[in-house]
């Protein structure tokens, strides 16, 4: 997830059982916000 970037946009971003393995939620949610 750290390396993941894309110019594509999505109607939904779903995640099943990944967030409990993540630490930097601020960065994570910011990156996910850019996908929508």
């Amino acid at each position, binding site marked *: *997830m750290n390396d*993941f970037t894309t*110019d*594509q946009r999505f109607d*939904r*971003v*779903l995640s*099943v*059982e*990944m967030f409990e393995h993540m630490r930097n939620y601020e960065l994570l949610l910011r990156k996910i916000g850019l996908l929508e």
Partner: protein
Amino acid sequence: MSVDLRIAESGTRPDRLNPRRHPQPLNRQRPATSAATVLKPLRRTTAGFHCLSLRQSPDCRRNPRRERSSITSVPGSSFSSTRTAAQIQLLLLILPQRGLISEEHMLTLTCERARCRNGMAILELGCGWGSLTACDGRAATLKSKQQSPASLQFPASAGIHPGSAGRSGALAT
């Protein structure tokens, strides 16, 4: 999804007023015929584990051939197409009967909660199997490190399952 559950999940009602009925409401929503449909192919197998093919799955009805072709259309994926298909088959094979039903119900419920509809572009972020994408019937499991952004392509497909996506991809961390 029941009206009550919908209200509870909308967040408009304070949590303390929500009835604590989990997980019964989720189980009760599923038709009893669903289990019977699953059990039928199960009886034909000899092992204690079930050999449920993707096609026979009640909640995620799909065309296995189409699914496989969807998997193959991911270019440069570190998961080879056959391996991904084999892994999904293995997943279905090793999960105990009840486990698979609840797993599929949960994935279906996830799609319902996200209000996924056919034709939507959906990205799955996750670890492991990419079960949601597999359940959706259009598995495009990508490994982020080997996958450059330009090569991210999502297979167009015709969804059978109402909660399924038109284009979807799974990103394995």
